[in-house]
């Protein structure tokens, strides 16, 4: 390790980065675009679900309930059914994703409160609809299965209705998404940038010249990776700022902790990128492999689907991914005001990931030079 040589590589890399407009645009563009995309477009608050209503009671109270449901905007009543079979038909054809059933003895059930008074049927084949319906179902009012629709695979009756949240449609707002987005964006940009930057050197033939100089592979890799630590921190700041100004996402815990955790996570992502660079022969391959690591992380880490809802095997797999641990850390710090001390196992997991990746990369690096 020679500091002068290391700095020479860092300086060179920065000059090249400043000159590479595309990468530069990606550094700022990807976080901005993703934040706005996830914040606005991919809103997990599902609203205006096409729905039908079957009001067999037809009392003043039942009509009131239907009107209330309609005004919540979660369900959009497009059909009025007279028979349960009609609901089944509509759902099978994909005309509706949900249905509300009010039984003839609605009033009696409501008074006695021994059985669910009414029922929501959802199209269980759509994960996001199911999730939305679960949101509605915090109240354990109705747990009654609805005949054929419930017993058929792909369709499940969801118990009860969450009434309170009808009037708070912003429940799963960007507040939850933005902290996770920091992790997702870094997982995407850091891995791709580093893997490609290192592979580029080999692909363009620069490596062949460099090997004949006293520059060691370790100095070269470290020098190339260091500028990206800075870039990662810039991206974190950008997302935090945009999250605050555009969506009003707060940082409830310590800002220092946020950066400390981000730094550790950036280290893990960079090491993953270095590891990929030892496998890939071309920049294109590096990009493909980076995506290969990116997708399972985004799906299993708990960013998109709740960790608790996944099968045990998927949970074990998720424990390997740095994003899983980072999400727990950043959500804890930003939203629950947790301290790093309380979350140390997650920090340890990230550190372990870095050490393992580094060890593998160093071993592989020697081989690829021959």
């Amino acid at each position: 390790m020679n500091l002068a040589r290391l700095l020479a590589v860092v300086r060179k890399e920065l000059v090249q980065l400043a000159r590479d407009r595309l990468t530069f645009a990606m550094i700022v563009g990807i976080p901005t675009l993703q934040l706005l995309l996830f914040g606005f477009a991919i809103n997990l608050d599902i609203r205006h679900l096409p729905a039908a209503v079957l009001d067999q009671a037809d009392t003043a109270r039942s009509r009131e309930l239907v009107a209330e449901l309609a005004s919540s905007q979660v369900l959009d009543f497009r059909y009025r059914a007279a028979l349960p079979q009609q609901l089944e038909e509509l759902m099978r054809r994909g005309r509706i994703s949900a249905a509300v059933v009010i039984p003839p003895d609605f009033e009696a059930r409501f008074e006695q409160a021994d059985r669910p008074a009414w029922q929501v049927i959802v199209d269980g084949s759509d994960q996001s609809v199911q999730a939305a319906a679960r949101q509605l179902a915090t109240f354990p009012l109705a747990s009654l299965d609805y005949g054929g629709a419930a017993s058929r695979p792909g369709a499940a009756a969801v118990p009860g209705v969450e009434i309170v949240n009808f009037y708070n449609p912003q429940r799963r707002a960007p507040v939850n998404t933005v902290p996770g987005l920091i992790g997702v964006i870094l997982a995407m940009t850091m891995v791709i940038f580093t893997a490609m930057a290192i592979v580029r050197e080999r692909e363009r033939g620069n490596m062949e010249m460099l090997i004949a100089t006293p520059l060691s592979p370790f100095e070269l890799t470290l020098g190339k990776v260091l500028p990206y630590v800075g870039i990662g921190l810039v991206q974190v700041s950008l997302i935090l700022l945009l999250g605050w100004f555009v969506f009003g996402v707060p940082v409830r815990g310590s800002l220092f902790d946020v950066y400390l955790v981000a730094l550790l996570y950036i280290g893990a992502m960079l090491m993953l990128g270095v590891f990929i660079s030892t496998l890939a022969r071309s920049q294109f391959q590096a990009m493909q492999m980076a995506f290969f690591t990116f997708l399972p992380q985004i799906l299993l880490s708990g960013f998109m689907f709740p960790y608790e809802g996944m099968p045990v095997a998927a949970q074990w797999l998720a424990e390997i991914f740095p994003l899983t641990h980072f999400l727990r850390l950043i959500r804890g710090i930003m939203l629950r005001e947790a301290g790093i001390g309380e979350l140390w196992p997650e920090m340890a997991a990230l550190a372990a990931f870095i050490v393992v990746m580094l060890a593998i990369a160093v071993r592989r690096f020697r081989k690829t030079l021959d």
Partner: protein
Amino acid sequence: MNATPAPATLPREEVIVARGLTRRFGDLVAVDSLDLDVRRAEVYGFLGPNGCGKSTTIRMLCGLLAPSAGEVRVLGHALPRDAEAVKRSIGYMTQKFSLYDDLSVRENLEFLAAVHGLRGENARRRLDSLYERYRLDDLRPRLAGTLSGGQKQRLALAAAVLHEPELLLLDEPTSAVDPQSRRDFWDSLFDLAEAGTTLVVSTHYMDEAERCHRLAILDRGRLVADGSPQALMANLPGATFRVDCAEPRRMQQALSALPHVLGVAQIGASLRVLTDRRDDGSWLDSQVRAVETEARVEPTSPNLEDVFVAATRTRPAAPHRDTERTA
């Protein structure tokens, strides 16, 4: 083009000594039991067609590739064990331009100066002298990717000699430049040799090979001939003749089929014939007249191409170096 005679006053110290140097890639034997001796301040050439093992040999001599078998000492260091020590005192100019296209001439050289441990005033002085010697002064702010072939080559040479290496290895350095740039480039190489640098150059140009002090002809990974270009031509195991005839294409076909004829090449209206019989041409004369009665045969002096053809064509019949080793 005449080769400059090897400087006789300098000590005949061996800079590269290789014995049985071999490199395999899977089943392919890229370099097969090569023996080499390269002396200080000489320009040593590797001549051979593409795929003959020139680049692989040069990479092994740089410490970039580990040999599969054999021993090699470069500047007194055993490779691949002391590769790091060797890297401090060698320069390597790659076949493909390998500096950074998106850095300027100046940024490229400053980066390499820092990599080689040159700092401050030393670095500045060294770079200034390189800008001047390789006519890069006006090109300093230009991005390397925008330079012409000749300019890139001068930059690559400046980069390779930046740390004043004792040994400079060049892998087909002139494949992408015009004839004038090639001449200038070779002048630069002789300047370096005069200053005491040892040069190993691979090429597939005969005129370039002829300018080397000594030469190794490689064919399919094997050394098939070596020595000074003059000695190689003088010791050609055969003779060359010029054949003037009316129908050169027909004559060429007829002669090519004969035993003892190693090569027939059409030069303008006449044919140049290489045989493995060292006689006055009476044998060829009789063969030629059998095809065309009016044709005339005249002896000519052999050139390096004849040596190359003879060396690569006769290999199965006269593998003298190989039999020595396997016996």
